[in-house]
């Protein structure tokens, strides 16, 4: 694989901090290798949008280095933005104009506009170019905004909540286009989403943000593999010991559920040696991991 950027990273945030009155981003380290899809997840207000705006050069960080496609941000944001397609949930197109006007506008600025692909997307998304933006439903507007970004085939796609508020069909269409981007090894995607299912499905790497801090950032398969839920039958009189990698145990009578974020089969043996019986060891969905992780990290901070 060709490495076009320093360290082969399309996006690199090092020690980035930003302070607001009631919220601050703290020591953000984020690396997105070229050719991968990075999913950014976290609760509302965690700092996803702020992080994205910082890497787009729209907000100037208070500390730390930001490099996107090899360019320092925000100083070189103009150069970077030629190759970035950005869409965020709070972005709006001009209501009084048609989608066709917007398409022409973008096309007149960017050389990389692929008119044929734009027509394909119009059809796939079920949009009519002659329609004015104000006549479109929310879902159609989101698709219109994404069309404007996708048809340019940019090297980097930065999407803040691209599937939020979309019906399942529209979501499926968007995911299809996003994974389609991966046909080209040199293209990279970073997207934030509440929809853990989407993130779980298409991300190569996952970054977890909560309250302005990065909690986890790693390879998705490795990440999913570290988490397990153990269903344990605890005989009367037995106390379950605290074990490494177990971040929480919920017990109700004789049945307990232990959650692990660094699973090791030895843990199961350790439980059984106390007399407890492991009923089942289950993988967890990203949504279940999300909730457990946020609870756990907040407990840790408060401790």
């Amino acid at each position, binding site marked *: 694989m060709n490495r076009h950027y320093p360290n082969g990273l399309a996006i690199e945030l090092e020690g980035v901090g930003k302070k607001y009155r009631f919220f601050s981003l703290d020591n953000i380290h984020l690396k997105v290798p070229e050719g991968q899809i990075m999913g950014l997840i976290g609760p509302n207000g965690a700092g996803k949008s702020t992080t994205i705006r910082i890497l787009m050069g729209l907000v100037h960080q208070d500390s730390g280095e930001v490099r996107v496609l090899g360019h320092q941000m925000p100083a070189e944001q103009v150069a970077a933005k030629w190759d970035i397609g950005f869409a965020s949930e709070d972005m709006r197109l001009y209501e009084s104009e048609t989608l066709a006007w917007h398409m022409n506008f973008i096309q007149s600025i960017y050389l990389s506009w692929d008119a044929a692909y734009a027509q394909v997307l119009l059809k796939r998304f079920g949009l009519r170019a002659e329609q004015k933006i104000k006549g479109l439903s929310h879902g159609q507007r989101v698709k219109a905004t994404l069309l404007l970004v996708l048809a340019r085939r940019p090297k980097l796609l930065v999407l803040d909540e691209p599937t939020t508020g979309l019906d399942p069909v529209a979501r499926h269409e968007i995911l299809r286009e996003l994974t389609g981007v991966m046909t080209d090894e040199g293209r990279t995607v970073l997207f934030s989403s509440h929809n853990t299912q989407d993130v779980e499905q298409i991300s190569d790497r996952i970054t977890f943000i909560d309250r302005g801090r990065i909690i986890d950032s790693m390879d998705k*398969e490795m990440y999913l593999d570290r988490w397990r839920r153990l269903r344990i039958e605890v005989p009367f009189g037995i106390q379950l010991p605290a074990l490494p990698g177990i971040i929480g145990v919920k017990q109700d009578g004789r049945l307990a559920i232990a959650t692990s974020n660094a699973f090791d089969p030895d843990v199961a043996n350790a439980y059984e040696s106390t007399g407890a019986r492991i009923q089942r060891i289950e993988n967890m969905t990203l949504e279940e991991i999300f909730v457990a992780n946020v609870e756990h990290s907040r407990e840790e901070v408060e401790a």
Partner: protein
Amino acid sequence: MDGAFAISQSDKRPMYLQIMEQIKQRIAVGDWTEGQAIPSIRQLAVDLQVSVITVKRAYLELEREGIIVTQQGKGSHVASTPGLGARLREQELEQHLEQAARIAALLGLRPRQLEHRLREAGDRLAEKEII
């Protein structure tokens, strides 16, 4: 060809395992034969709308089991081991038989009863095929 591949959201098993299973089924059933080229990691990821890393993991595990071979720059293909399809079918049968034995034990069936039930199932299948 790839329309028959599907990742199920309701299936609780990790996606890479589902992919592995479906690839093995393809080979077991004979859709993909020994030595046949299979979609590249990237291509399958795009077709299934899953991350490249998931398909990569599936392919790595399959390679470890000797079922497929991936060559740098040349793509991937089913291992050329003769009788691979048959072997995988054997594996699947073994899995189902173990499963049956486990459930039979839970039901309290004795081995002879299990044998009988298996024979009945075989007869039913034969009848259906005649009709």
